[in-house]
């Protein structure tokens, strides 16, 4: 790898700080370089105000999602990654089913990682773009709590948007 010598240099540096993130949902732990984890504004604030112990507990985020978040942070902490590389890597991370995306967007929101929040919510937005409400219901598995009359009324109010749909 081209970046190997640099890694060696880093390895010989006196102490390289790491943080341990722990999912409180399934107690999975992740050891992460500090500069990678600090992309989360939430974690940075904890570290800055000395609230962070050796292990930082992350509530409501599963290990599976946390792994994705860390993957994103690692990619974006790599100074030699080109914009194109990052775009491709981001696209890979958000190529998930809608339920994973929802968990991911909540995680990005909680951990306050702006870039991840943007790509994930944009991906969800893209998945329902120009789709009529019936399709959106199906995608999200949302229950329709309108009565037929209510639905007809709200649909009539937005009739202009349904041009081209039956």
């Amino acid at each position, binding site marked *: 790898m081209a970046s190997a010598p640099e890694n060696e240099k880093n390895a010989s540096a006196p102490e390289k700080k790491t943080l341990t993130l722990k999912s409180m949902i399934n107690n999975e732990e992740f050891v992460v370089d500090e500069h990678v984890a600090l992309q989360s504004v939430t974690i940075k604030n904890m570290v800055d105000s000395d609230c962070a112990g050796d292990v930082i507990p992350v509530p409501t985020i599963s290990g599976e999602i946390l792994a994705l978040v860390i993957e994103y942070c690692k990619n974006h902490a790599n100074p030699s990654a080109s914009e194109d590389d990052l775009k491709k890597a981001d696209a890979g991370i958000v190529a998930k089913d809608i339920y994973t995306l*929802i968990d991911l967007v909540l995680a990005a929101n909680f951990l306050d990682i702006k870039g991840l*929040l943007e790509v994930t919510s944009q991906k969800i*937005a893209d998945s329902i773009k120009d*789709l009529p*409400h019936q399709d959106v219901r199906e995608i999200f598995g*949302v229950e329709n709590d309108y009565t037929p009359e209510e*639905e007809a009324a709200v649909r009539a109010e*937005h009739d202009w*948007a349904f041009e081209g749909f039956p």
Partner: protein
Amino acid sequence: MSFEPPWQVLVLVANRLDPKTLAMASCVSKSWFLSMSSDCLWQPICSTHFPYLSSLHFSAGGGSTVPYRRLYTLGRMSSKRRLQKPPKPHLSLHHLIFTVDVHKGNSVILSTVKPLSEIDTDPGGVFRFDIGVCDVEFAVVDMLDGFRLTWNVVLEGYKGVFTMMDCESKGGPHQWFTEELPSPGCCSSAGAGSGMVAELMLGSRESVGRMVVEKVNVGMMSVLSWRYVSIDDALRYLQHFLVTSWV
């Protein structure tokens, strides 16, 4: 399976939706409606697309304000109305008959009557017709000191007649004539023209001091684009003059 995405997710996603998708997503469920119809979302959309609507929002008076989502709908309707296509004309070509007269004083040089049902329409769908006439001969000298040319459109059953062109040739062997058409308007545009002209061409050849007219071309042109107008536009124009006398 029933699943409701948390409202934070809806709010985060809603910020990235276009107006059309937002409107459709409002119909998903009651909680989706609340997330997708908030003024925070629609206000920037309104001020981008229809700045005047945002001012309308505040000038509503009585302390009551209209949701921006509704204002956006209003804005869409108003801009769409501008693009509204004119209705199909109720006249059609086979209702019409063309007459073309070329005369000089009391003597008729050429007189032809042609129902449009007997003329091929232009392949481009424009109002331009080739009226074949059996070779009409007259002396070139007749053309030199002026003659009068009239093109009328008659509505079948003599229910109406409209003069497209009535002009005097000052002399010279002209073969191309145009005359401005009057404004059809719903407005009294005194002095302002219709922006359209009637055009007439005599297709002729000369043979030993005689002029032989082989065909007559007529059409309606827009002076803005110098193109022939479409058949539908011409019919809408003509029906204004012909159908009023039809009733």
